[in-house]
């Protein structure tokens, strides 16, 4: 209609005219219409409405006049309302509206010019025809009518659909949907999937429309929203609380929202997915949700999702999380019977879904367009499905489809059924025979194999061998198949089994049938037994030996052996020997014959084995040694050109007390060596062999051989003894080891020796570090002298024998070498000689210097008569009194106050003489005075350095004492002799010798000691230091030592270096005297001896680090 230009022009003119009228209206009347508005829903008619005051005049009507665009005629209509439905005109239209009163009188008239721009295109409000929900998929399905018939031509339409939820009508989604209006009514549909279960809350939907008319110049607006529609509730809405979604199956890794619905009066405490709690999302007053991200595979019974409600109650649901089916792997289709084709496959990754939710498989064949549903067990790894074989169809194109709630997958395979024959296992397998070498086999294979040939493999095995026999045969339908096997061994047990496949296109073997055993019948022995003979020493009898035949040679059970003796083809003797005997004795009677032995079983006799009885003499048969080969004995011999019919090596193995079993082995004439093996050979056992040569006229012993299969170390140690022992050597002798204990050819002995005593911790020589060993390889040697040993030393000896197999055990002995007598003698003689020489030298020196000694030590005593000393007799008496006080009563006798008689010893002419006072040369003696009384002392006892050295017990300082210088006559000694006088030849000098022993006796009362403290500062000190108190020498004060150093005269011996433990020491234990030593080795006053007396050696403190008799006798030989 709008395409007509003339019509458009007319409409435009009309609109312009109407507009001019509108703007030319006078609006002075209240009833006059105004604000004309027009809208169109279908671009065909429009609804115009206006405003007018009508409150004062009821019953007003309006007359609307417009120009009809089709007929260009004025059309007027009356209406009581303020709206009118008029056609849409092109361009401008003049609309005149007249207000009429009840009587039809015009009250006011208004003319409007209505152009298209002032008309609004507002589609009709769409109506939702249907709103449904699929709760399992959370999907809403919406249907509505597009009202396309409203428009006469095609138009583009847009639809806007709004999804709202909850009571608060929250917009969830605002979706656009475009369609094309075709001029006819169409039902449009649209769906939307929610992210949460639809049961969780209320959903609402509304829709509106927009018409996109490109040529319409007026305003195009969206239609009104359709009436809101509510998603229908689930039919099975429970009264109690519930959790959604229920029993849903989702993919691993999905994000799932669960909601818990509960009733009024309840509230939710928490909500868990499995054992994990999630934060609650409140959906509405009675619903809360949780969102679980990236769910993992569930257990077979699913993952429980549950909410705990208050005041009590627990509701839940189960979510199954798994995988979509994997692509079937290793799809293989084959036929076993030509009745069905069996396809098998591996399902691949487990879906974690079972039973109702497990993967379902459908096998589809594209050529025949048939499919079968496969019943598989998800728990089994291997899946199978059977498809029927169609007649006249060889090629099959299979597609295996797998599907579960989460997805689907498929796998394809194209096969020629004739090339995929995998036969069933042969059954009813039987084996039979009626001969010694043949067997009949029969088996059954189910299936129809008429169109193919079969290839069957028969496996024949026994204890020694295994072979396989392939048999091709025509196929049959459900038939028995037969085969014939020959070349079997007589009287042998075989195991048979069979398997089959297609012959032409081999695909796979069937499984082996069950095994069947069969023993073939007996046959005569295949050959005669191996024989040997031995003549008795005198040659009257001949013992014939034979070896039992092998099972493979016997062809049955050997019952007996027939032994015959032939001479020039005439049988002289024959007799049958039953098993198990393997030898017999024949009396030759001095004649030789040809021995024949035949083995017999139930089936017959073996060919005969022959050997001559003649032995040739042997001269100078040597015995050689064989070589142990580990698993046998290696024997070699020299080739003998006269040997024409081979060599025979014979040996005999004895076991325990039974007679030895003769065994032998034969070799061709060109053989020169062999390794003899026998199960009876044992390591370490010596075997003797005899090598016979077969010559044209008999057997000759060529050589004896001894050997071991394997040499071992000797079993025992050689028995050895010590024959002789000296101070530096040991002679050892040993005996041979018995042959049975050698376990090999003896190669020598190893003698170990090392210092060691019996009972030491070391148990073997291997631990010994300083051992010495001697290798004795000369086996004829039976003794050995070990040299360069130390005397009087204990040695440990060990002797071991050895073979190629190793070193045997050791036997140990302990031996002590003898003492070195020369050394002993030297050790004695040298000190004695030294002592004698020293003594002689000393004596000579003393003799030569006797005058000097006398002058020095014992000068002549002056005549007392000429001495002024008598004038001091009173004083001397006083001193004597004092001595009496100091000496013990037992050693003193009351003496009158006189000069005491002195004893003069002169050999046997001892006589008492009055001491002749020689002129005295007084020495200056300084006396330390401790008392007020000044004593003039001439007695050497008083001025004894020992006494001087003694500290007073009261601790008084001797330095503080007063000094008294007295005249002193050294040789004058007054002493009361308590022991018998000793005559000493001291030359011509008359010297008083005082028994030193008597002076050891205590003579001083300690309480009186403080009264006589003297200190000599210088001058002469006598060689004898007589004690006047019991003070110890060790208590020398430093002052005294200083005095000793500064003294003009010193004794010839230093008392400090004298041995205090000498039995003659003044502080000897026996003497109980603590005085210091005195005298010198040269002094005739000395009691120290240059050569110790005999009892000196018995001193308990003797410390001799060299040899001693005691040590000598402690080391005794080990016997």
């Amino acid at each position, binding site marked *: 209609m709008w395409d007509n230009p003339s019509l458009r022009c007319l409409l435009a003119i009309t609109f312009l005219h109407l507009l001019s009228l509108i703007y030319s209206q006078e609006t002075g009347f209240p009833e006059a219409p105004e604000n004309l508005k027009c809208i169109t829903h279908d671009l065909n008619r429009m609804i115009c409405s206006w405003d007018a005051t009508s409150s004062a005049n009821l019953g007003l009507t309006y007359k609307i006049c417009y120009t009809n665009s089709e007929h260009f005629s004025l059309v007027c209509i009356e209406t009581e309302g303020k709206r009118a439905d008029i056609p849409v005109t092109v361009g401008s239209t003049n609309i005149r509206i007249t207000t009429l009163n009840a009587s039809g009188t015009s009250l006011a008239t208004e003319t409007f010019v209505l152009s298209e721009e002032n008309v609004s295109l507002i589609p009709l409000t769409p109506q939702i025809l249907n709103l449904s929900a699929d709760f399992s998929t959370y999907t809403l399905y919406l249907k509505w009518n597009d009202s396309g018939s409203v428009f006469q031509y095609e138009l583009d339409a847009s639809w806007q659909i709004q999804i709202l939820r909850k009571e608060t009508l929250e917009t969830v989604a605002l979706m656009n949907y475009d369609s094309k209006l075709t001029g006819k009514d169409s039902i449009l549909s649209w769906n939307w999937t929610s992210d949460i279960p639809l049961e969780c809350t209320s959903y609402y939907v509304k829709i509106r429309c927009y018409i996109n008319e490109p040529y319409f110049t007026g305003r195009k607006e969206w239609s009104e929203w359709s009436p809101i529609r509510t998603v229908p509730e689930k039919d099975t809405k429970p009264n109690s609380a519930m959790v959604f979604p229920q029993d849903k199956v989702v993919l691993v890794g999905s994000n799932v929202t669960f909601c818990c619905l509960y009733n009024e009066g309840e509230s939710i405490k928490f909500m868990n997915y499995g054992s994990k709690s999630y934060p609650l999302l409140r959906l509405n007053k009675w619903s809360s949700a949780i969102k679980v991200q990236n769910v993992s595979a569930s257990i077979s019974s699913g993952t429980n999702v549950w909410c705990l409600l208050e005041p009590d109650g627990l509701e839940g*649901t189960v979510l199954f999380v798994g995988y979509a089916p994997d692509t079937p792997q290793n799809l293989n289709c084959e036929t076993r019977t030509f009745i069905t084709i069996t396809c098998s496959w591996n399902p691949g990754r487990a879906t974690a879904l*079972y039973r109702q939710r497990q993967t379902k498989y459908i096998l589809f064949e594209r050529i025949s367009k048939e499919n079968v549903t496969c019943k598989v067990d998800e728990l089994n790894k291997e899946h199978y499905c059977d498809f029927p074989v169609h007649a006249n169809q060889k090629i099959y194109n299979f597609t295996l489809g797998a599907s579960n709630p989460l997805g689907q997958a498929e796998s394809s395979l194209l096969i020629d059924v004739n090339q995929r024959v995998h036969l069933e296992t042969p059954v009813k397998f039987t084996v039979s025979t009626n001969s010694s070498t043949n067997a009949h086999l029969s088996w059954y294979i189910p299936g129809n194999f008429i169109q193919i040939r079969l290839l069957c493999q028969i496996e024949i095995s026994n204890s020694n061998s295994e072979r396989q026999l392939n048999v091709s045969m025509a196929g049959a339908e459900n038939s028995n198949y037969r085969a014939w096997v020959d070349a079997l061994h007589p009287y042998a047990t075989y195991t048979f089994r069979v398997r089959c496949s297609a012959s032409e296109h081999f695909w796979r073997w069937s499984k082996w049938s069950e095994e069947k055993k069969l023993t073939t019948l007996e046959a005569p022995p295949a050959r005669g037994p191996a024989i040997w003979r031995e003549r008795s020493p005198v040659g009257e009898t001949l013992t014939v030996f034979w070896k039992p035949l092998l099972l493979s040679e016997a062809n049955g059970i050997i019952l007996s052996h027939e032994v015959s003796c032939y001479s020039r083809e005439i049988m002289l003797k024959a007799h049958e020997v039953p098993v198990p005997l393997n030898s017999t004795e024949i009396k030759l009677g001095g004649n030789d014959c040809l021995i024949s032995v035949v083995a017999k079983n139930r089936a017959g006799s073996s060919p005969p084995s022959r050997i001559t009885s003649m032995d040739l003499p042997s001269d100078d048969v040597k015995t050689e040694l064989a070589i142990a080969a580990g698993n046998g004995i290696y024997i070699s011999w020299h080739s003998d050109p006269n040997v024409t019919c081979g060599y025979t090596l014979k040996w005999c193995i004895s076991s325990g007390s039974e007679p030895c079993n003769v065994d032998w082995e034969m070799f061709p004439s060109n053989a020169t060596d062999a390794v003899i093996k026998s199960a009876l050979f044992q390591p370490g056992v010596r075997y003797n062999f005899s090598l016979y040569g077969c010559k044209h006229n008999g057997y000759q012993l060529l050589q004896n051989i001894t050997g071991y299969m394997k040499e071992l170390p000797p079993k025992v140690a050689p028995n050895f003894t010590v024959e002789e022992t000296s101070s530096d050597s040991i002679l050892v002798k040993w005996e041979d080891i018995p042959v049975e204990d050698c376990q090999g050819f003896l190669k020598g002995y190893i003698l170990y020796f090392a210092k060691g005593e019996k009972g030491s911790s070391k148990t073997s020589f291997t631990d010994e570090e300083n051992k010495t060993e001697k290798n004795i390889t000369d086996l004829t040697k039976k003794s050995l002298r070990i040299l360069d040993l130390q005397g009087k030393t204990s040695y440990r000896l060990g002797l071991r024998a050895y073979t190629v197999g190793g070193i045997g055990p050791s036997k140990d002995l302990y031996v002590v070498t003898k003492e070195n007598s020369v050394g002993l003698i030297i050790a004695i003689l040298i000190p004695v000689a030294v002592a004698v020489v020293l003594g002689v030298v000393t004596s000579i020196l003393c003799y030569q210097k006797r005058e000097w000694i006398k002058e020095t030590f014992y000068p002549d005593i002056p005549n007392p008569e000429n001495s002024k000393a008598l004038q001091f007799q009173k004083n001397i008496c006083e001193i004597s009194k004092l001595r009496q006080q100091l000496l013990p009563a037992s050693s003193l006798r009351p003496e009158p106050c006189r000069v005491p008689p002195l004893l003069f010893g002169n050999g046997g002419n001892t006589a008492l003489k009055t001491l002749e006072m020689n002129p005295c040369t007084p020495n200056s003696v300084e006396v330390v005075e401790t008392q007020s009384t000044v004593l003039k002392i001439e007695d050497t006892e008083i001025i004894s350095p020992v006494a001087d050295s003694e500290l007073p017990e009261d601790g008084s300082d001797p330095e503080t004492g007063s000094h008294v210088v007295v005249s002193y006559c050294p040789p004058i000694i007054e002493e009361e002799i308590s022991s018998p006088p000793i005559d000493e030849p001291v030359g011509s000098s008359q010297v008083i010798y005082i028994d030193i022993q008597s002076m050891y006796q205590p003579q001083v009362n300690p309480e009186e000691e403080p009264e006589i403290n003297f200190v000599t500062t210088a001058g002469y000190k006598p060689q004898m230091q007589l004690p006047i108190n019991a003070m110890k020498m060790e208590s020398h004060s430093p002052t005294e030592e200083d005095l000793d150093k500064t003294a003009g005269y010193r004794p010839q011996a230093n008392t400090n270096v004298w041995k205090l433990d000498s039995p003659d020491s003044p502080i000897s234990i026996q003497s109980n005297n603590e005085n210091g030593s005195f005298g010198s080795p040269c002094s005739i006053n000395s009691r120290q001896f240059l050569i110790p007396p005999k009892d000196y050696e018995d001193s308990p403190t003797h410390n001799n680090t060299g040899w001693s008799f005691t040590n000598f006798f402690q080391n005794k030989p080990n016997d």
Partner: protein
Amino acid sequence: MGESFFPSSIGVVPLLLMIHCRLVVGKALPVNTPSPMCENTHVCKPNVAEQTRKLVVLLNATAQDLFSIYLDCQGDPFSSHLDELCNANGTNFPNFDVNRTSHKKEIMVALYKVFAFLNASLGNITRDQEELNPTAKELLERLHNTTKTTRGLISNLTCLLCTNYKVSQVDVTYGKSSKGMNVFKKKQQGCQVLRRYVQVVSQAAQVLLPHLSQA
């Protein structure tokens, strides 16, 4: 073991199975409909009472393990929220209101009601668990064993009731069929039945001992 305990039930068991197959699907027998329970019952063997007691003892000995394994196979919260989930009030498990002083006949009737209900429920539970836990072999084996023992026990009880106590009809109630229930409800119902079963079979073992030992 079970077969030797109820040799007299050769003819009764098929009938009971037929009846219980109906019961499994949730159709309760009309209370006043004449029961064919005694139709094929013959004279009980002398030791049937002792056999019955031993069967109850056996069920009591295995009930707790069955329940524990069942809970383990259902996943959380069946072990952690037992009281909220497995409240026995949610089932129609028959009351066992007899004690040692009750009459033997009352005890036999109560036992029959309990184990008839249990037999039907075990059918539901076994079917559901074979679907949900096909790999839980121990659970399924225990369910099968318990069902077999329960059927033997029902056979013996039927014999005792019909022969010794002249009871030819017992009104029995059964639980709801789990068919159509969601998986969680199936698990829950099994839990409720087995939990109550553990309690009742313990009471039965206690109550049964003095009565049957005298028989």
